[in-house]
């Protein structure tokens, strides 16, 4: 591990990489602060830039920096405006906004920054410990197990979608898988489902899909509902200091939530949102009677808990990405797509084949968190001014950046029409409350899923591999259970309610 750390330090501490981390964090904070723009949209917009860098470590470091920055920026807008840019920071606004209203905006921001820093840093330490162990286990996997593992991942994403939404999330995953079969596959030299269009020969572009699914609907929503970007009075931000008693109060919260958040983040499909809500709920339940009353009215513990948890979860979500090559969230799915575009295959072999990528990402997590703490915190009063950009300027530029991102990826104007078409479709899907992240995850995993499936079929000359490899069978049963059990439980719960004369 020490050797790995040294490799990481060597790569990550070059001037270029430091520039990437700092630049990524600043860009992320900057855009993440805009209400309504989540980390997924921002990363989607940044991907063309990252891919043209050509260097996978640099690209991943840049995107990871943008990711932390966006989460940090998102909590800033939650606290100052009660307008969370990201679902993961909704819980931050429960206590952060009341604090800001009570004139303690500066203190709230400091606590958020310290909590994020600790959550991210402790998460990175845990990542460093667990990722190598997991990837050495994963090296024993064959393509049959990989196939089964991806099915488990996709099943878990659907199952964590929440009760009443399992079918929708499953359908979106399937739609993503279907979209991934368009174009020429790796194992078969024949175009499929292109409808005779040359532009679909190489399949849907992942950048276009990411833009169309995340960035465009957000922008259209901003147009549809001006209240979404309501610009409250951010007021004066002063007095960033916290005193010793407060530090003592939040320290145990940060410790607990870093660990809890990290492990929730590792689970596919759970991610920062669930981690932050769960962290908030847990801390409220174990707080003393007197402190419990403060929750929701500006409790510093209630602010520190979700902030720590969501940053730790962000780090945790890198574990399945880096060790198994299976993204657990929409954001890591986008990162995986970027890595594949750069010819890097994340998975258990990443640590042995290209250790510099793995370790430099980990080192960059420490640096990124440090940058957020010492660079962004003092700058916040100034960065917050971006919240005053009029939406008449903001929205055209967001739309333009999505168009540009998809155009420079392909250099093809038809791509733009596909982008707009998919974007409108994605907006309608969001109206109907369909979750969109499963679609992108399905799309990105689709090709790998099919390749591994076909490879095992060829090796075992048929579908027998499912029965002959106990681990594959076990994983597939687990996947089926993940999808079926929650819906059965919901059904039973409902029936019980009906009997009670509801």
């Amino acid at each position, binding site marked *: 591990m020490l050797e790995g750390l040294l490799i990481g330090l060597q790569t990550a501490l070059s001037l270029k990489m430091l520039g990437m981390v700092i630049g990524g964090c600043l860009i992320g904070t900057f855009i993440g602060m805009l209400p309504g723009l989540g980390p997924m949209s921002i990363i989607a917009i940044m991907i063309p830039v990252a891919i043209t860098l050509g260097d996978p470590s640099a690209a991943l470091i840049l995107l990871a920096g943008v990711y932390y920055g966006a989460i940090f920026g998102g909590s800033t807008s939650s606290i100052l405006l009660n307008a969370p840019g990201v679902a993961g920071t909704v819980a931050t606004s429960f206590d952060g906004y009341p604090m800001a209203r009570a004139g303690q905006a500066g203190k709230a921001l400091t606590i958020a920054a310290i909590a994020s820093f600790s959550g991210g840093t402790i998460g990175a330490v845990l990542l460093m410990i667990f990722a190598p162990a997991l990837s050495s286990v994963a090296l024993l996997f064959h393509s049959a197990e990989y196939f089964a593992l991806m099915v488990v991942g996709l099943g878990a994403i659907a199952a964590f979608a929440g009760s*009443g939404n399992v079918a*929708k999330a499953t*359908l979106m995953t*399937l739609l993503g898988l279907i979209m991934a079969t368009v174009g020429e596959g790796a194992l078969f030299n024949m175009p*499929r*489902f292109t409808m005779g269009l040359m532009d679909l020969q190489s399949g849907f572009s992942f950048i276009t899909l990411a833009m169309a699914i995340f960035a465009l609907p957000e922008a259209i*929503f901003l147009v549809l509902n001006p209240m979404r970007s309501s610009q409250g009075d951010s007021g004066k931000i002063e007095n960033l200091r916290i005193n010793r008693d407060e530090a003592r109060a939040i320290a145990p919260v940060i410790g607990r939530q870093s660990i809890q958040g990290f492990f929730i983040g590792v689970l596919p499909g759970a991610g920062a949102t669930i981690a932050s809500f769960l962290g908030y709920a847990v801390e409220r339940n174990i707080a003393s009677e007197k402190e419990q009353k403060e929750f929701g009215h500006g409790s510093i513990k209630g602010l520190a808990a979700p902030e720590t948890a969501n940053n730790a979860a962000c780090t945790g979500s890198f574990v399945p990405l880096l060790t198994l090559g299976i993204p657990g969230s929409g954001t890591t799915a986008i990162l995986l797509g970027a890595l594949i575009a750069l010819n890097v295959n994340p998975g258990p072999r990443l640590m042995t084949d290209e250790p510099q990528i793995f370790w430099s990402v980990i080192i960059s997590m420490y640096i990124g968190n440090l940058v957020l703490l010492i660079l962004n915190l003092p700058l916040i009063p100034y960065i917050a001014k971006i919240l005053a950009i009029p939406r008449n300027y903001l929205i055209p530029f967001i739309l333009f950046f999505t168009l540009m991102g998809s155009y*420079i990826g392909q250099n093809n104007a038809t791509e733009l029409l596909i982008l707009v078409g998919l974007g409108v479709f994605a907006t309608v899907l969001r109206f109907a409350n369909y979750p969109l992240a499963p679609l992108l995850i399905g799309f990105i995993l689709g090709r790998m899923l099919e390749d591994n499936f076909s490879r095992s*079929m060829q090796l075992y000359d048929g579908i027998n591999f499912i029965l002959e490899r106990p681990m594959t069978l076990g994983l597939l049963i687990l996947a089926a259970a993940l999808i079926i059990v929650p819906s059965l439980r919901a059904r039973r719960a409902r029936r019980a309610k009906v009997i009670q004369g509801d």
Partner: protein
Amino acid sequence: MALDRWIALIILVISIVYGYAAYFTMDQLLPPFMQRNPVWPSTFPKILSVLAIVTSLIILLGLEKPAADAKEPDIDYRRLGDYNIGQAALLVAMMVVYALTLRPLGFFIATIGFLTLSAAILGERKFHILIPITTVAAFVIWYLVEQVLGIFLRPLPTFMIGG
């Protein structure tokens, strides 16, 4: 019928068409030597189409009831009239126009036009501020993409560069 079930219907139709293509049109094209393989290009799509048809039927027939404490969607489509639907439609149209004019008109005219008109659609009227900003932005972005990222963007209209 609620919007989510309409969407399930649309996806159902898509997956039936997709399944039809996978089951009945793909295998004839397969060369004989590949037919000895246990897995064909159409194998995976066949499985997917069946799963997608079943799942969309589950939603369409309402077999899975939404949870009682279902959270509000981000935006309520039943109140669509209250939202700026006209502006959104115009902006989408602007994006289509941009896609169609980017090549013939060149990057500068298309981009400045897109940014200015979109802002105007959103209600911006201070053109003496708006146009300089969009012009500068277009040049800066063109410089970054062309020079820093090294991706060619045709800057001028087709007729001015003779082709």
